């Protein structure tokens, strides 16, 4: 296909890769506020912004706290920041895939950031409550301590130690949580694709195929076979993405117009006419097959070379993105389930 189509595909998957790193505007605002409050924070803010030109998932509540807390929070935010996203041409991306971007930001990004920030904020609230508990005590003791300077010193000492212990506990808890959160953003295999990942060896083979300029990958363990397009019978009353039926070994194969199914928002009349399907990629032992224009190659890849998706979101059929080829890898079981239900690529199961 054309270069522009390839660019679009690249952008498409760049978006998918970068989704979990988006931040809610509220956080950005709060971060701005906090940035002015502390010089140390400013430095840190710059450092994070320089990484990928975006703000990080720092919780603003903590930034308003004492320097000790800020340091603790920096420690917490580090693991979250570590995921570097490939540079994106955001404008082009929005122009090309406006509906997809909208949906993604509404659902996946939102849910991903929501879970992260909600949990993070919970612990931050805990930290806050510890500090809130500690502060009135300090004030109370300070007032009482005026005439009793000796007692004051002792109590202050006690308070400092108890407060620091509490802070340490809270920070430790948060660090633990932050580590867990990092796994949710895709560093290790997530829950949705767990089954598929278990099924795959550390190194597994995938077949790359092309549809309207878009490259897709299917793990060979989920591949039912490859059939050449011969005679596809059109059956009335079926969705647009349903190409028809082809007879294969005395049974009927349901052939999916992969372009129309995978990217309905881009698949206009012009693109549909330009597509020349040559092969049908059979999905496991179902009677579903994806029509494709060409078979690229079959290569061995490592599990770590795939950015596995953590949330089913709008595309449960997409297991992840192969980093090197920048192409989607199919979750064939979810795909079959969707097709059996007559659902499109942006519908969710159940």
């Amino acid at each position, binding site marked *: 296909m054309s270069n522009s189509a390839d660019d679009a595909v690249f952008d498409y998957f760049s978006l998918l890769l970068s989704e979990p790193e988006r931040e809610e505007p509220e956080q950005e605002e709060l971060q701005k506020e906090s940035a002015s409050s502390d010089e140390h924070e400013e430095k840190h803010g710059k450092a994070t912004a320089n990484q990928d030109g975006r703000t990080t998932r720092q919780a603003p509540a903590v930034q308003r706290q004492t320097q000790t807390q800020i340091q603790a929070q920096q420690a917490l935010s580090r693991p979250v920041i570590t995921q570097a996203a490939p540079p994106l041409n955001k404008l082009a991306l929005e122009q090309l895939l406006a509906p997809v971007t909208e949906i993604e930001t509404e659902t996946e990004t939102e849910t991903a950031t929501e879970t992260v920030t909600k949990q993070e904020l919970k612990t931050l609230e805990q930290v806050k409550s510890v500090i809130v508990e500690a502060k009135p005590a300090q004030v109370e003791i300070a007032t009482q301590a005026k005439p009793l300077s000796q007692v004051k010193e002792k109590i202050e000492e006690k308070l400092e130690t108890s407060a620091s212990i509490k802070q340490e506990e809270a920070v430790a808890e948060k660090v633990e949580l932050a580590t867990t959160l990092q796994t949710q953003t895709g560093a290790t295999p997530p829950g949705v694709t767990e089954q598929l990942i278990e099924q795959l060896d550390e190194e597994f083979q995938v077949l790359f195929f092309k549809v309207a300029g878009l490259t897709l990958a299917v793990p060979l363990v989920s591949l039912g076979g490859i059939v050449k397009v011969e005679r596809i019978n059109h059956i009335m*009353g*079926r969705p647009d993405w349903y190409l028809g039926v082809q007879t294969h070994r005395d049974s009927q194969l349901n052939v999916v117009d992969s372009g129309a199914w995978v990217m309905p928002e881009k698949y206009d009349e012009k693109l549909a006419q330009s597509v020349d399907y040559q092969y049908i990629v059979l999905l496991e032992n179902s009677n579903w097959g994806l029509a494709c224009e060409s078979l690229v190659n079959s290569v061995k890849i490592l599990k770590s070379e795939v950015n596995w998706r953590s949330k089913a979101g709008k595309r449960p059929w997409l297991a992840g993105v192969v980093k090197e080829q920048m192409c989607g890898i199919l979750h064939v079981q979810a795909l079959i389930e969707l097709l059996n239900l007559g659902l499109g690529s942006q519908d969710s199961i159940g």
Partner: protein
Amino acid sequence: MADAKNVAAVAAGKDDEVLQWVTFRLDNETYGINVMQVQEVLRYTEIAPVPGAPHYVLGIINLRGNVVTVIDTRSRFGLPSAEVDDSTRIVIIEAEKQVIGILVDSVAEVVYLRGSEIDNAPNVGTEESAKFIQGVSNRDNELLILVDLDKLLSDEEWMELAQL
């Protein structure tokens, strides 16, 4: 024991009943309709349009003194309209106790099909037209789409047609 086997064989035989289907073509696909519902096949003849008729009605023809309504099969099947040519036929059928004509590209043959040779059509359609596919069958590497003529129109449409 032998009796039981015979009973089973008879039962299986009944299930695997042989039916005859008249096949016709529409937009490069072959469709089959139950021969028992087909009365006759006519060459294309002038179809007189009926003002105010539903969109799926092409018009009426005079069949030996009887007025027969002709259905626009292509539009019913969601296919683009085509020019009438030498092979165009009007198949006179009986469905839902009404005699109507359906306009088809051509009529091919009568085929015999066992029940076991008929597969279910893929159940992914939500459109109205998805309902009238009774099944599909593979014959000589050609797919035959079997049409349930009774479901070609909805109950309301059949009533509407009766009052035309």
